[in-house]
């Protein structure tokens, strides 16, 4: 590898997806005269290769970091340089971003590969791969940028790609609506992001992390509370937290690989990344962080409960994602950034796996997503079934699977960290318990039992199963990057590999393990117990029927707590109503009539004055006389001439 590449590694990580985008978005459609004539093999192949190469660069960056070098920096160019505002595109690959970059490029490559198969029936797949590459590019900017502004570039860029991909099948208005909803809800969050940047810039004159870190001292705490609130607001949008999670389930309208990549593995975790990146800001606003933790817990519960009553396989996974993201926020809220990132990673593995598996199912069932029409697919889709089972075990937190480690750590931190509490722990545990139930329900409805309709799936081609297998391996063993202390000591494994890797970048308050109300081992036991109970409960509950025992509760959950309806009547309708109102009253009645009124007024007075010009000579003479007399009188008797 040449020095040029070597010294600009972060840039190369970025550039390759961009090249892929350029090829698929511009060059290839031009060459083949129209995007609909593009072949999925060529476009998918190029896109996957680009991602693989990018992964390769990310991995070599990781190796360099591992070899002990500090963060890798690349100055690309000065974006804006005014006397009182200047920002440049500067990249840095440090320990945190290298983890993120690996996840993005690694899982990205797999999903690209998978998509070749998934999109094989689509005309004009180049568009799809172009968007996908563009997404990876944006996501990589997000994690590689060394300043907040370019994070925002990526932040909104991924939002755009999400929009484009959700609305990929725009012929159906529902998909397009879902895309718009996703974009708009994200925009609401981004509003906070922009204001946060404004606040930071106004105070510190910079948006670069290193300079912010250098300048921020505890005396800024009050000011930063505002910043923290705004950034948190931004994160709730992007990471689908309460109250802005509503877009994520709808976003399932996009092709399934998109759901896997964007709405499970990468984009939605950007909020967590932001917290980890700006921990020094958030740590100065403990009150906000407590709220974050509780919002995370609440979100985990909301997601987990709604997932119980969904019948669309992707919706279940979507709410599951919401719930898992809640876990991550819970962790960041209490200050356990390592745990959050750890769960982010494992979640990326198993949720991507689950989504891809679901995609494989849907692919096999010719686009059918309703689990009520499935069942018994285990035989037809053995690989898919096996890998999805692994993913499910992981998400349910069955010991030794990756989810077990990361979830346990979060649960432990929820009660052990200074900002933690038993309440948070209880909420987290409950959510973990729910996870087991709905996951079992999904498996049961999809793979087990008898076929409930005429759908007879067929196993997917290797390009789709290969990523499943790879991800299954990761989902199984990924947890060993964060083995808890007690277990590690017992088995002799290295402790918290990931946490220690991150510590130089994201330092975490030292924790006295023995001061925790519930010890680490105890937490593991409780968690395991809960998931096992959950599994059995699920198996018991959903033997014949797939509805919840309580009809009212079922209705409530199936209706997703009617949050969408509430938002519609609380925000959307008033907005349109206000627009209409203004258009009709202030604008329509007043503004648009100002000219009319002036015109009418002028015409009216013109007509009145015109009456004076009645053509009667006598009146003319009288006017003359009156004018004369008046002027004479005034000038005679107003002495001061």
């Amino acid at each position, binding site marked *: 590898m040449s020095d040029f590449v070597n010294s600009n590694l972060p840039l190369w990580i970025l550039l390759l997806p961009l090249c892929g985008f350029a090829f698929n978005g511009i060059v290839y459609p031009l060459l083949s005269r129209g995007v609909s004539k593009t072949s999925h093999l060529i476009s998918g192949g190029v896109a996957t290769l680009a991602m693989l190469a990018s992964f390769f660069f990310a991995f070599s960056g990781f190796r360099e970091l591992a070899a002990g070098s500090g963060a890798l920096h690349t100055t690309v160019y000065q974006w804006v340089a005014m006397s009182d505002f200047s920002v440049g595109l500067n990249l840095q690959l440090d320990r945190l971003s290298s983890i993120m970059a690996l996840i993005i490029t690694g899982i990205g490559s797999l999903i690209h590969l998978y998509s070749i198969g998934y999109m094989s029936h689509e005309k004009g797949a180049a568009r799809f791969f172009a968007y996908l590459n563009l997404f990876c590019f944006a996501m990589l900017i997000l994690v590689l940028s060394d300043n907040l502004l370019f994070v925002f570039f990526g932040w909104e860029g991924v939002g755009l790609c999400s929009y484009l991909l959700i609305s990929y099948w725009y012929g159906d208005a529902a998909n397009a609506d879902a895309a718009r909803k996703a974009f708009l809800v994200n925009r609401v969050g981004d509003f906070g992001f922009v204001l946060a940047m404004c606040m930071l810039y106004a105070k510190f004159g910079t948006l670069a992390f290193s300079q912010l870190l250098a300048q921020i001292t505890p005396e800024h705490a009050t000011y930063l509370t505002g910043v923290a609130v705004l950034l948190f607001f931004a994160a709730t949008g992007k990471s689908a937290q309460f109250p802005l999670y509503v877009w994520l389930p709808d976003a399932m309208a996009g092709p399934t690989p998109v759901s896997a990549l964007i709405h499970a593995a990468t984009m939605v975790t950007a909020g967590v990344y932001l917290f980890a990146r700006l921990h020094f800001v958030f740590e100065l606003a403990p009150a906000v962080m407590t709220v974050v933790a509780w919002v995370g817990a609440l979100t985990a519960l909301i997601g987990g409960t709604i997932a119980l009553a969904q019948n669309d396989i992707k919706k279940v996974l979507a709410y599951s994602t919401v719930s898992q993201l809640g876990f991550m926020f819970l962790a960041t809220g209490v200050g356990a950034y390592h745990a959050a990132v750890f769960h982010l990673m494992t979640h990326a593995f198993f949720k991507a796996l689950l989504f891809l598996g679901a995609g494989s199912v849907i692919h096999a069932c010719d686009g059918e997503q309703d689990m009520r029409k499935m069942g018994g697919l285990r035989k037809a889709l053995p690989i898919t079934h096996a890998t999805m089972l692994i993913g499910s075990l992981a998400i349910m937190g069955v010991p030794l699977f990756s989810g077990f480690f990361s979830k346990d750590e979060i649960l432990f931190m929820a009660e052990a960290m200074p900002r933690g509490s038993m309440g948070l722990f209880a909420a987290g545990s409950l959510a973990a318990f729910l996870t087991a139930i709905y996951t079992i329900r999904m498996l049961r409805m999809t793979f087990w039992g008898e076929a409930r309709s005429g759908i007879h799936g067929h196993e997917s081609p290797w390009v789709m199963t290969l990523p499943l297998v790879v991800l299954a391996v990761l989902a199984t063993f990924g947890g060993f990057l964060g083995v808890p202390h007690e277990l590690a000591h017992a088995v002799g494994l290295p402790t918290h590999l990931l946490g220690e890797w991150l510590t130089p970048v994201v330092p975490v308050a030292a924790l006295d393990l023995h001061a925790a109300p519930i010890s680490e081992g105890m937490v593991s036991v409780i968690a395991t117990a809960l998931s096992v109970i959950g599994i059995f409960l699920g198996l018991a509950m959903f033997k014949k029927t797939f509805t919840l025992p309580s009809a009212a509760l079922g209705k409530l959950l199936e209706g997703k707590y009617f949050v969408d309806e509430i938002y519609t009547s609380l925000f959307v309708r008033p907005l349109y109503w206000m627009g209409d109102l203004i258009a009709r009253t202030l604008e329509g009645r007043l503004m648009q009539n100002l000219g009319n009124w002036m015109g009418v007024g002028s015409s009216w007075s013109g007509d009145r004055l*015109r009456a004076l*010009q*009645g*053509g*009667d*000579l*006598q009146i003319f*003479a*009288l006017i003359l*006389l009156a004018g*004369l007399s008046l002027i004479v009188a005034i000038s005679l008797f107003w002495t001061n001439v």
Partner: protein
Amino acid sequence: MDTGVLLHLLSAWLFCMGLLAICVRRNTLVMLMGIELMLNGVNLSFVTFAHELQQLSGQLQVFFVITIAAAESAVGLSILVNVYRNFGSIKTDRTQTLRG
């Protein structure tokens, strides 16, 4: 009251009566006479001032004014004739087609 003031007051009277004639009479011929009345008032004023100022030029102005008045009434009467031809009347209630 001396002569000058009396005559001045008379001139003002004549002038204003001329205006009055124009304002109240609907017969344009009488209106024309009203103008003549006004001019006569002016003439009287000139003469009186000349008298008071012991100046001759004031009387000369009157000479000009009388001549002009004569010319004016000639033109005026021909205009009346013209109006009469067009409207069949010289009363102002008829000549009101131009308006607005």
